[in-house]
C-alpha cells in the first residue's frame, strides 16, 4: 500500500507519541519532541496544495468493524485546523523545553507525563481532523476529549477537580453526539458522509430539530457555548503553563471544526435556517447566533472580574469562541471568512498571551493580579508580547484580530442584524476594558519591592513568544495569507467564498486594505514622534517621584490601584452578576444527589419480598386485565 501524505503525517505523529512515551525521561526529551512537531508541520506543509486548491488526500488506513467501514482523509478544512494545531503544538512544546521544564520539575511536576499528554493530544486531534465519516468523527472526538482530560488533570489538586468537572461535561456532550449519530444511522442506514447528505433532505423537521439540538449541544459543550461553558475557564487556567497555551489556542476549536463538518456541511445552513421555532419568529440559525452572542458577552464581563491572569485569559477564550460561531452562523461570504479567520487569529494571540503570563509566573511565582505591577521595567520583551497579544485580542487595527472582527461586523451589517451587531460590539468593548486591566495590573503601575531583581524571561521561553508576536503582526499586515486558506475551506464546507486581496477584502459595500491602514497609522506615529521628540530630551524620574497630594511615597507603601479595577462600572453592572449558570449547575448536581439518596434508601430499607410481591401483582394484573 503506497504511503499517502496523510499516512506519513499520522505515522510521524504516532512516532512523536512513542518518542515521548519511551525516551521522555531524559532532559533532552523536550527538545526532541519539539523538533518532531516541527517535522510534522513540514509534512503538513507538503500537503499545502489542500490549503489553496482544495481537493482531498485519502489515507490508505481504512477498515470495517461490525459492518461499519471507517476511513480517514484530509481536505482543506482539516488541513487548515491541522495547521493551527501543529503550529500551536510546536510553539507550546518549544516554550515548555528549557527553563520552564526545569522549574516545573523542581516544583514536583512530571515532565515525562506532560510531554506524553501533549503528544497524545496532538495525535488525537489529527485523527479527529482526518475523520472520513461520522463514526470516525465520533471516535476522534472521544479520543480528543480524553486526551484533553489527561492534560488537564496533570497538575493535581485543583486541576484534577477542574478536569473532573470537564470530563463530566465532555461525557454528556459525547453521549449527546452518540445519540445523534444513532438517529442519523437509523434514518440513513449508513454513517458515510455522502449517504447522510442524501438522508438529510428526506428527514422530517422534528427529527432534524432533534439532530441539530443533539449535535449542536454535543459540540457546544466542547466549544464552551453558553449553558455548558462553566468548565472551560478553570480547566484551561489550571493546566500547566504551555499546556494551557496549547489548549487555549486550539482545543475548544475542535468543537467548531465538528460544527462546520456536521451542521454546516452535512445539514447545510439553509436547512437549519428553515427550522422554525414554533410561536416565535426566530429559527435555528438565529438561535445559534444568539447563543454565540451571549457566549461573547457573559464570559467577557466575567473575565473582567477575575483576579487571576490565567483565569481572565481562559474566560476570554470562551468569549472569542462566540465570535467564531457567530461568523460561521451568519454564513455569508464575509461572515464565514471572519469566523474561520478568527480561529487562526485567536489561536495566535491566545497562545502568546498564555505564554507571556506563564513567563511572568515563571519569574515572579504568582499570577494574582493584585500581587503584581510595574514589571515593564524589568521584563520589557514580555510586556511587548503581551501588548501585541492584547491588541490582537481586543481587535485593534495593527493586529490580525481586527481583520477577523471587521469581517464579522461587516457581515452582520450586510445581513442587517442590528441587535447582534450591538451585542458583538459590547463584547469587544468589554474585551478592551478587561484586557487593559490585565496589562495594567501586571506590567504598569508600581513595581513591588520583591520584584526588583526580576530578570526578563529566559530565551527558551522568549523565542516562541516573539515568533507568535511576529505572526500576529504579519497576518495583521497581510491578512491575505490566511484568507487564502479560509477561502478554500469555505468552498469545501459549502459557504460562499470571499474574494480576498493580500491586504484585505475587496467588496462593493466598503473594502479593507490593511497595508494602507497600517501604513498610514505608522506614518501618523512618525509625525507624532517628530512633534514629541522635537522638544528635546526629558529627564527620567524615579517611580516614587510622583504627585501624591502632598504625601511622601515610600517603597513599602503599596499605592497601585488594581483591586476592583472598574469600580465605576461595577456600581451599575455589579448587581447583574448573579452566577445564574453556577446556580443551574449546582441544581442539576443536587438533583442527582437527591435521586441517588432515594435509590440508596430503596436498596437499604428494602423489604425485598414486598417489592417482589408487588411487581408480581402488577404484572399479573396487567396481563389479566
Amino acid at each position, binding site marked *: 500500500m503506497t504511503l499517502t501524505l496523510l499516512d506519513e503525517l499520522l505515522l510521524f505523529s504516532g512516532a512523536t507519541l512513542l518518542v515521548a512515551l519511551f525516551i521522555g525521561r531524559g532532559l533532552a526529551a523536550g527538545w526532541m519532541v519539539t523538533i518532531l512537531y516541527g517535522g510534522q508541520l513540514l509534512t503538513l506543509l507538503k500537503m499545502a496544495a489542500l490549503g489553496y486548491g482544495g481537493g482531498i488526500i485519502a489515507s490508505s488506513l481504512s477498515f470495517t468493524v461490525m459492518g461499519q467501514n471507517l476511513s480517514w482523509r484530509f481536505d482543506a478544512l482539516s488541513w487548515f485546523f491541522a495547521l493551527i494545531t501543529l503550529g500551536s503544538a510546536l510553539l507550546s512544546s518549544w516554550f515548555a523545553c528549557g527553563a520552564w521544564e526545569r522549574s516545573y520539575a523542581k516544583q514536583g511536576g512530571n515532565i515525562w507525563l506532560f510531554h506524553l499528554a501533549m503528544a497524545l493530544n496532538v495525535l488525537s486531534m489529527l485523527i479527529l481532523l482526518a475523520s472520513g465519516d461520522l463514526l470516525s468523527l465520533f471516535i476522534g472526538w472521544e479520543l480528543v476529549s480524553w486526551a484533553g482530560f489527561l492534560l488537564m488533570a496533570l497538575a493535581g489538586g485543583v486541576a484534577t477537580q477542574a478536569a473532573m468537572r470537564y470530563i463530566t461535561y465532555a461525557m454528556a456532550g459525547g453521549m449527546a453526539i452518540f445519540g445523534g449519530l444513532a438517529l442519523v444511522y437509523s434514518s440513513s442506514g449508513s454513517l458515510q458522509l455522502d449517504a447522510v447528505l442524501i438522508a438529510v433532505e428526506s428527514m422530517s423537521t422534528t427529527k432534524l430539530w432533534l439532530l441539530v439540538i443533539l449535535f449542536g449541544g454535543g459540540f457546544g459543550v466542547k466549544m464552551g457555548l453558553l449553558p455548558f461553558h462553566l468548565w472551560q475557564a478553570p480547566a484551561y487556567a489550571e493546566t500547566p503553563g504551555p499546556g494551557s497555551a496549547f489548549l487555549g489556542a486550539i482545543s475548544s476549536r475542535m468543537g467548531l471544526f465538528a460544527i462546520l463538518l456536521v451542521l454546516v456541511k452535512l445539514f447545510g445552513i439553509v436547512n437549519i435556517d428553515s427550522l422554525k421555532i414554533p410561536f416565535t419568529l426566530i429559527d435555528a440559525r438565529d438561535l445559534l447566533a444568539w447563543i454565540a452572542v451571549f457566549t461573547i458577552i457573559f464570559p467577557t464581563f466575567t473575565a473582567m472580574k477575575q483576579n487571576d491572569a490565567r483565569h481572565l485569559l481562559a474566560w476570554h477564550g470562551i468569549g472569542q469562541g462566540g465570535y467564531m460561531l457567530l461568523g460561521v452562523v451568519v454564513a455569508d461570504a464575509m461572515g464565514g471568512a471572519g469566523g474561520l479567520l478568527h480561529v487562526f487569529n485567536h489561536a495566535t494571540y491566545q497562545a502568546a498571551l498564555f505564554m507571556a503570563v506563564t513567563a511572568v509566573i515563571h519569574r515572579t511565582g504568582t499570577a494574582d493580579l493584585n500581587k503584581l505591577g510595574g514589571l515593564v521595567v524589568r521584563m520589557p520583551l514580555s510586556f511587548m508580547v503581551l501588548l501585541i497579544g492584547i491588541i490582537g485580542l481586543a481587535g485593534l487595527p495593527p493586529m490580525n484580530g481586527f481583520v477577523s472582527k471587521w469581517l464579522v461586523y461587516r457581515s452582520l451589517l450586510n445581513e442587517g442584524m442590528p441587535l447582534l451587531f450591538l451585542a458583538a460590539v459590547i463584547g469587544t468593548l468589554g474585551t478592551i476594558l478587561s484586557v487593559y486591566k490585565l496589562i495594567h495590573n501586571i506590567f504598569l503601575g508600581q513595581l513591588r519591592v520583591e520584584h526588583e531583581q526580576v530578570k526578563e524571561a529566559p530565551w527558551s521561553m522568549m523565542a516562541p513568544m516573539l515568533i507568535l508576536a511576529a505572526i500576529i503582526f504579519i497576518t495583521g499586515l497581510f491578512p491575505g495569507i490566511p484568507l487564502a486558506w479560509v477561502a478554500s475551506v469555505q468552498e469545501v464546507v459549502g459557504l460562499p467564498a470571499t474574494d480576498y486581496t493580500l491586504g484585505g477584502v475587496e467588496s462593493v459595500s466598503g473594502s479593507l486594505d490593511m497595508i494602507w491602514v497600517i501604513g498610514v497609522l505608522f506614518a501618523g506615529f512618525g509625525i507624532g514622534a517628530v512633534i514629541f521628540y522635537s522638544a528635546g530630551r526629558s529627564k527620567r524620574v524615579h517611580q516614587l517621584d510622583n504627585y501624591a497630594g502632598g504625601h511622601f511615597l515610600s517603597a513599602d507603601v503599596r*499605592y497601585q490601584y488594581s483591586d476592583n479595577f472598574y469600580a465605576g462600572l461595577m456600581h451599575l453592572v455589579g448587581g447583574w452578576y448573579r452566577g445564574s449558570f453556577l446556580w443551574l449547575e449546582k441544581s442539576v448536581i443536587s438533583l442527582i444527589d437527591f435521586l441517588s439518596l432515594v435509590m440508596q434508601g430503596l436498596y437499604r430499607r428494602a423489604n425485598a419480598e414486598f417489592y417482589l410481591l408487588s411487581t408480581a401483582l402488577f404484572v399479573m394484573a396487567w396481563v389479566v386485565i
Partner: protein
Amino acid sequence: MAPLELLLELTLMPLVAFLVGMMMVLMMRRIAARIQRRVGPPLFQPLYDIVKLHSKQTQVSHGLIHDIGIVMAMGGYIAAETLLPVPGMNGIAEKGGIITLLYLMMIPSLGLALGVGQCANPNGSIGIARALTAMLAYDIPLVIVIFGVAYAAGTTNLVDIIAQQQAGGFATWGAVQMPLLAVAGLIAMHASLGKQPFEIYIAPAEIATGPMVEMSGKHLGGLFVMQCFQLYTISVLYVSLFLGGGSTWFDFLLKSFLVLAIPASIAYLFPRYRTEDLLRLMWKWPVMLGLIGVAFVL
C-alpha cells in the same frame, strides 16, 4: 490616484486638521468664556500654549512607555484624519470604512492609557479606568448610529455616503433622512469629546485631573495637540455622516464649527456626572433613540 498625489494628500490632511482643530479649541474656550461672562483667550492662544509646553527646559518622563503613549495618542488621530474625506481630498477613505475609523479612534485612548499606566500614579489609573468606562458608555450608541447610517447607505465607505447625501441637496442629508439617529449621534459625540458634563475621568477635584496628573511639558503639549485633532475628527465625522459633508471648503468649515458649537454651549451648564450615572444616561436615551432610528431604517 497617482501615488505621489496620494502622498501629498496624506501630509496635507493632518495639517489642515491641526489648523482647523486649533480654531475649534479656540472657539470652545471663547464660548465657555462668554457663558461665564468673561472675554476669553486671544486668537492664537492654543498655538501659544503648545509652543510654550514644548519649549520647557525640564521635561519630566516616567519611562519609554510614557513617551510612546503620548506618541500613539497623537499618531492615532493623525492616521484617523487621512480616513476622513475633506472637500477635494479623499485620502484613503476607500481603503477602510467607518468601522476602521471607529477602531482607529480607539487607538489614541489605548495609547494614553498605556502612558498613564506607566506613571504609576493611582489617580492616573483611576482616571484611565473611568475613561475606558466612559468609552464603553458612549461607544455603544455611536456604534448603533454608525450601523444605521451604513445600513441606510448600503456601504461603509465614507466617500460614497457623502456622495449619496450631496446628490439630493438638502433633502437627502443624513439628519433629514434619519432625524432620530442624528440626535442620538449628537449626544454620543458630545460624550466622546469628554467635555464638561461627561468629563468624569479628568475631574480635577477628585483625582487631580486624572490621567493628566503626571503630564507636564511636551507630554501635556502632545495631549493638547491630540485634543485639537480629537475635536476636528469628531465634528467632521458627524458632518460627513449627517450633514452631507462639505461640497466647498467654506460650507464644510461652517458646518463643522456649527456642529461643535452645540455641545460647547451645552457643556458648561451641567454639573459633572458620576461614572455610573454617565453609563446609565448613555445607555438609556441615545441607545433608545438609536435603536428606534435603526428600526426605521431597516
